[in-house]
C-alpha cells in the first residue's frame, strides 16, 4: 500500500503558524490529527508513514494511532496520488440516473477496472459512495472538482481534455 | 521252517508299522475332511520342492516342528510319571494291533502261518485288557503335571474311560455269544458268506445294537468327539495341558493310533475284518489271477483318471503361481504316469501264480480290504467329530451308565433269546 519512496516531510512555516493557531481550538492534542493529516495531504498530495510520525509528534500520540485514524477515513491518500483521480459516485441516486453506464464507459475508455490505475499512472478510476450531489447525478469527482449530470459524451470530452494535458 | 521263525517278527513289525503309517494319513485326513465339511480348503501350503500333495506335507512339517520345538517341562512336576504318561499313551495304543488278523492264515507246506503278531484265543479280552491300561497314561499325565486343571482333567477322563469300558465289554458279549469264540481270526472267518444271500454276514448286521453301543463306547474310550472332555483344549482344559513338543505329540499320536486301533477292532469284530464281501478265502485263492488283473487294471484306470485331473490342476497352478509350486503337478503327473505304466506292465506281463503266490495275492487283497475298512471307519470318526457337539460331563456319564450298559444287557438278553429260538446255543 505504502510506497517505499522516501519523501522529506515537514510543515512549512505558514503551516506551523496555522497549527499553533488551531492548537488552542482543540482541548486535546489528538484533536489536531485530522487537521494535520489534511494539511499534509494538501501540501504533499498524500500521507506517508514519515508524515504520520511527524503528526504523531505534534499530537503527542503514537504513530500507530495516527495510522489508525488515517486508515479509518477513506479520503486520506496513503499512496502517492496520481494526476487524475476519477471518483464516480455509485450510490443509489446516481445509480438511478445511470452512473453504472458512466463507470462502464470510463472503464472502457481507460482500459482499467474500477479501483485500478492506468499504466501510465495518470488516471485512477474509483467507484465511490454518495458524494451528496444526488440531484445532479450521475456525477463524478475528479480530484477536488465535481462533474455533474454526466453523459458519455461529456465524459469523452473531459477525457479528451485531460489526455491533452 | 524258517517262515515260522521269522514270521512273528515280521508280523510284529507290520503290526507296529501299520498304525504308524496310517497316522500321518489320519492326521491329514482329519484336517482335510474337517476343512471340507466346514467349507474350507484345509492345509495346502507346506511344500517340499513345491510338492504339497494337498497338505500331506503339513504332517511332515508338524513332525519336524514338534521335534524341533522346545520341550518345556514345568519345574514342579513329578518327572518320572510326567514322562511316563505320554509314553504309555503311545505304547498302549499300539498293542491292540498285535492281535488283529491282517489276512487269513497262510498255509505254507502244511504249516499255518497266522498273519498277526500274537495268536491268542482270548483275543477280544486281551484287547479290552490292554485298552484299560490307557487310563494310566491319562491319569499319570494329569497327576504328574502338578496342575489342578490337568489333575481334574485326568480324573475326569479316567472316570470316563473306566465307565465306558463296561459298555465296551458288555456290548461284545452278544457278539461273542453268536460267534462262540474269542479268537479274532475265527470271528472274522465266521463273517464270511452272506445272510439271505445279499448282505455280507458281518456282525454289524447280526448285532446292530451291540455295534452301536460298541462304537459309541469306542468313541468315548479314545476321547474322541463328542466325548472329548478329557481334552477340551479350548474350554475345559485336559490332562495334557502342561505338555509340549514331542511329549504332547505322543499323546496326540496315541489318540490317533487309538482311533486307528479302534477302527481296526470295529472292522475286525463287526465289519468282517479282512473278509472280502461275497468272496471267501477259497474263492479268492482260486481266482487269484483274476484278482491281480483287476487290481492292476483298476490301478491303471485310476492313474489315467488322475493324470487327467493333474493336467487340469497343472493348468490352474500355472495361472496361479509364479514360484516353484508350479512344479508340483508335473512331478505328480510323472509319478502317476510311471505308476500307471507299471500297472499296465503288470497287467500285461503277469506270470502264472504258484500256490504261494495265490495265497499272497489273496492275503494282499484281503489286507487291502481290511485297511480300506479301517480307513472308512477312521473317516467315520472324523465325520462324527466335525458334526456332533461335545457332551456335558453329566450327560456323558448318564449315557454311559444309564443308557449304554442297560442297552448292552438288553442286547445280551435278546441275543440269548434269539440263540435259543434259532437253536444255535451250545
Amino acid at each position, binding site marked *: 500500500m505504502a510506497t517505499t519512496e522516501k519523501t522529506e516531510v515537514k510543515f512549512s512555516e505558514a503551516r506551523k503558524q496555522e497549527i499553533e493557531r488551531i492548537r488552542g481550538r482543540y482541548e486535546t492534542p489528538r484533536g489536531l490529527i485530522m487537521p494535520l493529516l489534511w494539511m499534509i495531504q494538501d501540501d504533499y498530495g498524500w500521507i506517508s508513514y514519515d508524515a504520520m510520525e511527524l503528526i504523531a509528534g505534534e499530537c503527542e500520540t503514537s504513530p500507530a494511532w495516527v495510522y489508525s485514524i488515517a486508515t479509518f477515513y477513506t479520503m486520506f491518500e496513503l499512496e502517492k496520488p496520481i494526476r487524475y483521480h476519477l471518483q464516480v459516485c455509485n450510490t443509489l441516486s446516481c445509480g438511478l440516473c445511470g452512473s453504472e453506464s458512466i463507470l462502464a464507459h470510463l472503464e472502457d475508455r481507460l482500459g482499467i477496472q474500477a479501483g485500478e490505475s492506468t499504466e501510465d499512472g495518470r488516471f485512477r478510476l474509483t467507484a465511490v459512495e454518495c458524494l451528496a450531489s444526488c440531484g445532479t447525478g450521475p456525477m463524478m469527482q475528479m480530484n477536488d472538482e465535481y462533474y455533474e449530470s454526466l453523459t458519455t459524451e461529456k465524459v469523452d470530452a473531459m477525457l479528451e481534455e485531460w489526455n491533452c494535458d | 521252517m524258517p517262515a515260522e521263525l521269522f514270521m512273528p517278527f515280521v508280523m510284529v513289525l507290520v503290526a507296529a508299522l501299520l498304525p504308524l503309517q496310517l497316522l500321518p494319513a489320519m492326521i491329514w485326513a482329519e484336517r482335510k475332511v474337517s476343512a471340507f465339511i466346514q467349507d474350507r480348503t484345509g492345509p495346502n501350503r507346506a511344500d517340499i520342492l513345491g510338492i504339497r500333495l494337498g497338505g500331506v506335507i503339513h504332517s511332515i512339517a508338524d513332525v519336524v516342528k514338534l521335534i524341533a520345538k522346545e520341550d518345556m517341562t514345568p519345574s514342579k512336576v513329578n518327572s518320572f510319571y510326567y514322562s511316563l504318561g505320554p509314553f504309555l499313551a503311545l505304547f498302549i495304543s499300539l498293542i491292540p494291533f498285535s492281535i488283529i488278523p491282517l489276512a487269513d492264515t497262510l498255509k505254507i507246506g502244511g504249516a499255518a502261518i497266522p498273519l498277526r503278531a500274537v495268536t491268542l*484265543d482270548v483275543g477280544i479280552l486281551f484287547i479290552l485288557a490292554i485298552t484299560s491300561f490307557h487310563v494310566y497314561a491319562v491319569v499319570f499325565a494329569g497327576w504328574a503335571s502338578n496342575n489342578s486343571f490337568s489333575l481334574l482333567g485326568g480324573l475326569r477322563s479316567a472316570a470316563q474311560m473306566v465307565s465306558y469300558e463296561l459298555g465296551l465289554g458288555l456290548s461284545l458279549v452278544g457278539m461273542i455269544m453268536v460267534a462262540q469264540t474269542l479268537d479274532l481270526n475265527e470271528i472274522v472267518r465266521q463273517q464270511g458268506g452272506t445272510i439271505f444271500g445279499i448282505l455280507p454276514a458281518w456282525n454289524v448286521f447280526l448285532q446292530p445294537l451291540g455295534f452301536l453301543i460298541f462304537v459309541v463306547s469306542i468313541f468315548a474310550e479314545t476321547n474322541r468327539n463328542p466325548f472329548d472332555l478329557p481334552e477340551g483344549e479350548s474350554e475345559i482344559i485336559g490332562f495334557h495341558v502342561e505338555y509340549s513338543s514331542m511329549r504332547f505329540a505322543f499323546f496326540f499320536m496315541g489318540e490317533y493310533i487309538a482311533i486307528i486301533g479302534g477302527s481296526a477292532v470295529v472292522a475286525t469284530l463287526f465289519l468282517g475284518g479282512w473278509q472280502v464281501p461275497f468272496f471267501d478265502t477259497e474263492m479268492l485263492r482260486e481266482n487269484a489271477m483274476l484278482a491281480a488283473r483287476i487290481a492292476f487294471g483298476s490301478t491303471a484306470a485310476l492313474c489315467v483318471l488322475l493324470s487327467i485331473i493333474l493336467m487340469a490342476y497343472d493348468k490352474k497352478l500355472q495361472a496361479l503361481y509364479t514360484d516353484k509350486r508350479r512344479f508340483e503337478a508335473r512331478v505328480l503327473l510323472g509319478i502317476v504316469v510311471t505308476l500307471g505304466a507299471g500297472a499296465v506292465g503288470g497287467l500285461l506281463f503277469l506270470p502264472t501264480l504258484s500256490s504261494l503266490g495265490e495265497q499272497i495275492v489273496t492275503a494282499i487283497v484281503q489286507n487291502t480290504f481290511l485297511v480300506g475298512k479301517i480307513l472308512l471307519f477312521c473317516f467315520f470318526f472324523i465325520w462324527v467329530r466335525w458334526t456332533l457337539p461335545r457332551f456335558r460331563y453329566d450327560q456323558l456319564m448318564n449315557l454311559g451308565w444309564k443308557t449304554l450298559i442297560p442297552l448292552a444287557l438288553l442286547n445280551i438278553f435278546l441275543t440269548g433269546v434269539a440263540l435259543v429260538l434259532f437253536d444255535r446255543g451250545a
Partner: protein
Amino acid sequence: MGPLLFWILSAVAVGSALATIVQRSPLSSALTLTLCLVAVAGLFATLSADFLFVIQLLVYAGAVMVLVIYVIMLLNLGDRELKPLGLSRPRTFVSGLVGILLLALLARAQAGAAGISMGDVPDGFGGVRSIAGTLFTSYLYPFEIVSVLLMAALVGVVVLAMKRF
C-alpha cells in the same frame, strides 16, 4: 525261552512287590503293584492260564489298580500325609522279622511240593472254553453267588461313597 521268561517275570514280580511296600508315595506303590500284577499275569500265561492272564490284566491291572490310583489322586495327599506314613524303624524291624520267619515257614512248606512236575496239559487248557466249561457246570452256583457278591459290593460302595453316611 520258557525258563527265561519265568525268571524275568518272577524277578519283576518280586522286585515290584518289594518296591510297592517300601516306597513312600502311595502312587508309586500303586504303580509298582500294577507292574507286579502284570508280571503275575505273565506268570499265569506261562502256566497255560490264558484266560486268567487276560482276566488278571483286565480286572486287576485295568480296573482295580486304576481305582486305587484314582482314589489316591482323589484324596490328593499332601506332603503332610506322606511324611509320617513312611517306614518307621521299630515296626519295620518287627515286620521284617515276621516276614523272614514266614518266608522260612512257607519255604519249608513248599518243599513239600518239590518234585511235582508240570506235565503236559491238553490243548486249550486254561483257555476260555475249558474254564467256561467247568465254570458253568460244576461251579455254576459259586459263580452266581459271586455275582451276588459283586452286586452287594456295588451297592455297598455306592452307599459308602455317598456324601453322608
